[in-house]
């Protein structure tokens, strides 16, 4: 019997009917999603697949990098001269400050030795470039050109010259995916430099804003306060700048104030970032007395605010 169907493939060597293929592959994709979300075994499959994706990602990035290199190498002489003069002047100023810094550093080390707490300082850093690849317009994520081969691990802190940038979420062989602190799924424990108020800064999906949703109306935060990382989660090294408060709105009737902060790191302009290895601070393990006393207070502080 001849019938007219939607399946216009040749009758001989047609393969399985479309509906069967559809159902098989649909079940396969749902199984993949569940496995990727729940179990770790799939990470090996993902590693193979990302190895195939790597040349594509690098290939997309390459023309942009070449253009940067080209425009950099034919920059005109007068601009270089001007830059040079300006940089020399800045270096002189920086050297001046550095002399003071050396004294301060000595003092700092002595104080730290006294407290027997040298943890929490970056031990090793690695410079990584951001690949010019658009992952998703609605998530604040970037791809770095360093991966498992370079010792990058999941949950590693990523900084730039001006502050905390984000943390590693996925490690592939040659690349790593980083979630920025401004992603709507990211939260970081912070502390005000001026008043010592501890709270949590949550991303809003906008690289120029962080939200501080757990700040009570009475708490002592002002526009311009610098927020530092506390290191409480053990992911970020403590004492690095995270954001500056840009907006505080208090309504007398509300329990929580509306507080926004601007990240100090240049989240949307960076080309290079630093991957950081550091020893987590002592209170993460609650080893000695003094930090152990500080830890519960810190946790309840973060929880209640």
């Amino acid at each position, binding site marked *: 019997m001849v019938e007219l169907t*939607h399946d216009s*493939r040749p009758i001989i060597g047609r393969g399985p009917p479309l509906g069967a293929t559809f159902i098989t*592959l*649909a079940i396969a994709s749902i199984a993949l999603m569940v496995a990727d979300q729940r179990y770790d075994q799939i990470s090996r499959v993902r590693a193979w697949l*990302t190895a195939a994706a790597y040349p594509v990602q690098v290939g*997309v990035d390459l023309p942009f990098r070449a253009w940067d290199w080209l425009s950099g190498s034919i920059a005109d002489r007068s601009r270089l001269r001007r830059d040079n003069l300006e940089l020399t002047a800045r270096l002189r100023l920086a050297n001046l400050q550095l002399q003071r810094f050396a004294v301060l550093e000595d003092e700092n080390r002595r104080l730290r030795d006294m407290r027997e707490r040298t943890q929490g300082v970056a031990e090793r850093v690695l410079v990584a470039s951001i690949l010019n690849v*658009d992952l998703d317009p609605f998530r604040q994520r970037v791809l770095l050109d360093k991966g498992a081969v370079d010792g990058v691990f999941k949950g590693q802190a990523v900084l730039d010259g001006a502050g905390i940038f984000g943390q590693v979420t996925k490690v592939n062989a040659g690349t790593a995916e980083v979630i920025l602190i401004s992603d709507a*799924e990211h939260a970081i424990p912070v502390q005000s430099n001026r008043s010592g108020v501890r709270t949590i800064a949550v991303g809003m999906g906008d690289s120029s804003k962080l939200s501080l949703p757990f700040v009570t109306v009475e708490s002592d935060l002002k526009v311009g306060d610098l927020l530092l990382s506390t290191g409480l989660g053990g992911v970020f090294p403590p004492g690095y700048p995270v954001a500056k408060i840009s907006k505080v709105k208090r309504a007398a009737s509300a329990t929580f104030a509306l507080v926004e902060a601007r990240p100090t790191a240049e989240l949307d302009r960076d080309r290079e970032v630093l991957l950081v290895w550091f020893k987590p601070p002592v209170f993460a393990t609650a080893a000695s007395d003094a930090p152990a006393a500080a830890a519960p207070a810190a946790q309840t502080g973060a929880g209640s605010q």
Partner: protein
Amino acid sequence: MRQSMFMRRILYWASVAAGLVLAIVPLPDWLDPVRPDLALLAVVYWILTSPRIAGLGYAWLSGLFLDVLRGMVLGQHALGFLVVAFLTHRLQLRMRMFPILHQAATVMLMLGLYHFIIFWTDGLIGHGYTGWNRWLPVLSGALLWPLIVAAGDSLTRRTG
């Protein structure tokens, strides 16, 4: 005949692959949310013109590769591609008869379904972004459809 089938197969693979690469090429921030799903449009186009060549398997694999490229949950875009490809196969005899605007409207419905699947799985996983601008590719893709048909037709006519 065999020669032209072979050429078409190459064209099909190459155009979908090009669409996948264009999915991650950096665009200015204002243009990024509008980015049309070129790979998916290529799949739909090839299923309509050469249903004997363009099957479900390659569409599914393309979706899977898009998941890998963009670092999404594996299988998310694969499922979206698969559903659209299957529907196009079911409707292809009808869709080929449609005038171009009617076809573009059908493609818009399919893109809407595709983005709904992505939106829905995003929500299940907990990534839900609910802004209105996540639906912009549906519109840009539908507007681009006549151009894609014109470009594809001139390409297939030249190679036979």
